[in-house]
C-alpha cells in the first residue's frame, strides 16, 4: 500500500532539488524555477497530510493559498527580472551588485 512516507520522501527530494537550484544557478529565471520546486514540495506535504489525517481539508485549503502566493511571486519576480535586464543588460545575479557599499 502507498503510505504517507512515500509522499514525504518525494517531497523531500523535490525540496532538496529546489534548494540545489537556488544555490547553484546564476541565471535569475533559473533560480525562480528552483523556488517553484520548493513551493510544490511544500504543497505535496500539505495535501498528503490532509489525506492521511482522516480527510481534514485544511491542508488542501492551505495548498490553494500556497498556489495563489506562488502565482503572485512569479509575476512580481519576473517583472523585477525584466526590469533588471533592461537596466544592466543581463540576468546574471552576480552582476546585480550596484547596491554594494
Amino acid at each position: 500500500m502507498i503510505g504517507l512516507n512515500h509522499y514525504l520522501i518525494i517531497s523531500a527530494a523535490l525540496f532538496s532539488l529546489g534548494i540545489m537550484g537556488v544555490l547553484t544557478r546564476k541565471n535569475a529565471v533559473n533560480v525562480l524555477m528552483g523556488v517553484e520546486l520548493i513551493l510544490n514540495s511544500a504543497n505535496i506535504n500539505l495535501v498528503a497530510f490532509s489525506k492521511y489525517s482522516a480527510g481534514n481539508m485544511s491542508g488542501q485549503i492551505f495548498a490553494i493559498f500556497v498556489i495563489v502566493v506562488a502565482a503572485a511571486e512569479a509575476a512580481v519576480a519576473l517583472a523585477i527580472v525584466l526590469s533588471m535586464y533592461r537596466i544592466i543588460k543581463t540576468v546574471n545575479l552576480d552582476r546585480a551588485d550596484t547596491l554594494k557599499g
Partner: protein
Amino acid sequence: MDNELLTRIVFYFFAAVTVGSAAVVVFARNLIRSAFALLFTFVGVAALYVFLGADFLAATQMVIYVGGILVLLLFGVMLTHKLYDLNLKAETFQFLPALVAVLGLFGILTTFMLRTRWHGGGQAESVPTTELIGELFMRDYILPFEAASILLLIALIGAAMIVRRRSE
C-alpha cells in the same frame, strides 16, 4: 490484488517522472530544457494530487502552474535573451559544496520523516473535494480568501507597474 499492483506501478511511474524531471530542471545546462522539464514536474505533481484524492487541486495545479506560471517563466527566459541566441547556457557555481549540503539536507529530512510516528486519523476515503473546498472558502476561510484575492490584485498591479516603460 491485481488492481493494487497496477496502482503501485502507476504511482512509482509518476513519482519517477516528478523527481527525475526536477533533477533535469536543476542540472540541465540549457535554460529552455530546464523550463520544459519543469512542465513534466508540474504534471507529475498534479498526478500525485490525484493519487491523494485532491481532484480540485490537481486541476488547479494544471491550470495555474502549467498554464500560467510555466508560460510566465518561458516568457522570462525568452525576453531576457536574444531571440536567436542558440547557447542559452546556464552557468553554475559552487556546485560541489551545494551538492554536499543538499544531500545532507535530504538525508536529515528523510531520516526524521521516517522516524517520526505521525498520528493522524488514518487514510481518508477519496470523495469529490470541489464542493467541500467551496463551502470552506465561503464559511471558515472567508477572511484569508478575501485577503488572498487582494494580495493577488496588488501583486499583478505592482508587476505591471514595475515593467511598464517610463514615458520619455
